[in-house]
């Protein structure tokens, strides 16, 4: 049962990591808490529903969601964040929260308040031994998370784009002074981050078979906890933090009992950790 619970934690943690990755990319270069990222995540899930139901193709659903969300992310950057770069951090944060409220209500008005189902079936076989049992879809989630992470890691470490991103994350102004088109870099961050959120949206929607307007509410703020735990702007840190949170929630729920409602655990760990190390788990000193 221990192995099974760890497996449960890893599946949950993979979903957390996927949602938080885009947030990390954006925070890395812009130092903006992009709460509306969760709105993109929900958009991805809805696009998934709209494409999957008539076509029955998960691949097509994921690709369309990624395309639509990339565009949405780019639009958000261009019209919401770019005009207020350099303002105190509270300004973009409130814009982001406002945009998120707007989106949640827009989804409700356009798609209706009811929960939609996204009955994804997957041909991959499950995995079952005496100690652990994972369905094909759970394996798919973990594999997709790992694949996206490796891809992102390659992009960051092995390409010129990654180099430019890291330079921009160090210091946006200096990077610009050295001829890096930071506007493009930031745009790429929003595109990639939003595409990953879209994938996460479709996968979460399919995993629980529920897509609804407020499905982003809890992820919106929990993802913030994940990126702080991961050191704000660190891609591997975010993945580790996502997995750690998934495991921590699963394991405390089972062995410590419902010590506190699950959603509080993330923040409790966060507050305690910040008191010990105010720059996050893997954060660099500011």
């Amino acid at each position: 049962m221990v192995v099974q619970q760890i497996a449960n934690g890893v599946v949950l943690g993979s979903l957390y990591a996927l949602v938080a990755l885009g947030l990390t990319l954006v925070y890395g270069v812009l130092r903006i808490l992009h709460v509306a990222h969760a709105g993109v995540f929900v958009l991805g899930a809805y696009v998934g529903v709209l494409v999957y139901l008539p076509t029955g193709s998960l691949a097509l659903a994921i690709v369309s969601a990624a395309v639509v969300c990339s565009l949405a992310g780019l639009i958000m950057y261009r019209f919401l964040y770019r005009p207020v770069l350099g303002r105190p951090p509270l300004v973009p944060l409130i814009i982001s929260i406002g945009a998120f409220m707007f989106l949640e209500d827009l989804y409700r008005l356009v798609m209706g308040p009811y929960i939609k189902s996204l009955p994804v079936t997957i041909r991959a076989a499950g995995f079952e031994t005496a100690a652990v049992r994972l369905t094909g879809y759970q394996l798919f989630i973990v594999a997709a998370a790992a694949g996206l992470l490796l891809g992102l890691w390659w992009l960051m470490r092995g390409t010129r784009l990654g180099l430019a991103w890291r330079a921009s994350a160090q210091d946006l102004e200096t990077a610009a002074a050295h001829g890096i088109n930071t506007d493009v870099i930031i745009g790429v961050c929003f595109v990639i981050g939003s595409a990953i959120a879209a994938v996460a949206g479709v996968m979460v929607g399919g995993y629980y078979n529920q897509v609804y307007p407020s499905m982003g509410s809890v992820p919106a703020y929990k993802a913030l906890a994940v990126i702080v735990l991961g050191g704000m702007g660190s891609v591997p840190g975010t993945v580790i933090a996502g997995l750690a949170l998934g495991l921590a929630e699963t394991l405390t729920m089972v062995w410590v009992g419902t010590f506190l409602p699950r959603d509080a655990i993330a923040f409790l760990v966060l507050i305690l950790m910040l008191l010990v190390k105010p720059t996050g788990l893997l954060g660099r000193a500011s």
Partner: protein
Amino acid sequence: MISSLYLVTVVTMTCIYIILASGLNIITGYAGQPNLGHAAFFGIGAYASALLTTKAGLSFWAALPLAILITAVVGLALGVISLRVRDDFLAITTIGVNFVVVSVFLYFTFFGRALGLGGIPRPTLFGYNLQKPQYLVLVLAVVALVMALCWVFSRSRLGLMVTAVREDEIAARCLGLDVTRLKIIAFVLGTSLAGLAGSLYAHFMTFISPYDFAFPVSITIMCMVVLGGAGTLWGPVVGAVVLASAPELLRFIQDYRMLVYGSLLVLLMLFQPSGLLGMGSAFAGRELRLAARARGRVNQGG
């Protein structure tokens, strides 16, 4: 008389929001410390007052100051945290505080869990039980007191020093300002007001439940401060009146309420980030307008 009980309710809630927004304004507006968990302190005040009256048998008049004190102690703790954790991290920490506090209300039987706490008495004065209209008079008196306090604070040297901390912490330290103490003072003052509002809310509603103090409430209070103009005396009041009465006035668009709310916030931050009464606004005080004009001149001058 009965025909105005609805109005009494709306005005009472607006007043409670004015106190909340004014308290947050001290923390976020004057001292410049983000606090997205103000509703947690609202809740702590409400629960403290409710428990003190229903379980400890105290009267409202004894419970109110104690509730403020209890909230202030927790606010002090957050103030200490704010010394160590800053900016974005502090913003997220305060969100976390809100989630954790609501969870505590939800989890422990002592706090009534999901059932909340009921049977909270209305205050009595000279043997009379204060019903809603009389209670509103009390709330209005408290609001007047709170605004007087905020007025004194905003004009005092203390207020000026707290604002200096917001503007530049290191420069403030180098002038001999005890930034640590000033930040803690701001947190304690701001959260005490939230505790006061919580107590007033509990005895107005007569029952409370954890979700009354959830994170979206913090967002609403923050919106009030930002909409009206953070760091101005009357900004939070205007913000609270507009946003607390907007749902009432905008009932005809009730289905699009959050849509309007959300876009209002976005547009305001994009085009008038210092709020309705903030710098550069047509509604701003004369001094601020002049300053903004002067800034415009300098910018044009290159």
